[in-house]
């Protein structure tokens, strides 16, 4: 039996407290210009590893909190995950590989990623993230598009 999926839908995605996390899975094709934007960013960030091409199926929060299955676009939902999945905030001095980095601007969680490496001198996190609808990138914390800012909070699930 063939499975027919809509172009957009919401996955059943619960927090540990069994509350649904609002999300959207977008199966629409890439839009014109996104691939050019991928190349443009690759040129601007030559020290980053650009892992993929563009995809509208998931965003950075979907990568970090939903295994690349869907897009979590509402900051309030990210905050809900952090609270209900028992994340604790970690001071920068104690960050290590596996922690989650969240770029925050006045409460808006505008970018997130997973720490994949910690440089020692100077201490700096290397992050696996995704830039909007564009590519997945492994980038140093200070080598993301400047629009994301540099106000980074780090979180860890400890139990």
């Amino acid at each position: 039996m063939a499975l027919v999926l809509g172009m957009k839908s919401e996955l059943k995605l619960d927090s540990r407290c069994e509350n649904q996390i609002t999300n959207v899975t977008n199966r629409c094709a890439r839009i014109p210009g996104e691939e050019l934007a991928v190349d443009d960013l690759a040129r601007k960030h030559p020290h980053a590893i650009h892992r993929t091409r563009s995809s509208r199926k998931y965003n950075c929060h979907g990568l970090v909190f939903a295994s690349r299955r869907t897009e979590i676009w509402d900051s309030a939902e990210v905050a809900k995950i952090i609270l209900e999945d028992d994340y604790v905030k970690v001071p920068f001095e104690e960050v290590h590989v596996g922690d989650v980095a969240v770029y925050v601007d006045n409460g808006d969680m505008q970018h997130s990623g997973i720490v994949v490496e910690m440089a020692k001198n100077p201490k700096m996190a290397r992050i696996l993230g995704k830039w909007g609808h564009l590519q997945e990138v492994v980038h140093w914390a200070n080598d993301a598009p400047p629009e994301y800012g540099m106000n980074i909070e780090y979180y860890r699930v400890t139990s």
Partner: protein
Amino acid sequence: MNSIDELDLSEAFKVYAISNTPIFLLKRLRADPATNEISRSFSGEKILAALNELAGVEEKHATDFVRPYVYLVALSKLPEIGYLRAAGDINGVGKWDWFKYIQQVLVESYSPVVRVEIKPPRFSKYTTQFETIGEKR
């Protein structure tokens, strides 16, 4: 600028493409010169008519995907909230994922902006006055 769709939205599209949340997009578009230019150059009726037209056609170019958001933010910079409210009632805006959300945020956070044009007094007038005073002395 004669037509609303003549404006270059390539920078706005770059921001749209890296947006993970609608608030991020909204903040960046508020600071984008294109939204200021549109709110300065076009009336609420014209911007709303352009949005209506966009809702009924398929997007062809990259910038067509960010255009409705640019127009919406431009409406929020007008001194009258009615156009911003009306934008939420346009048929077909549901195809733009974050449109309704951003429209609601803009309505809730709306503060009227009144644009007052202040013209400096003409220099020649003062010159004449000074000359007159000087003559009296």
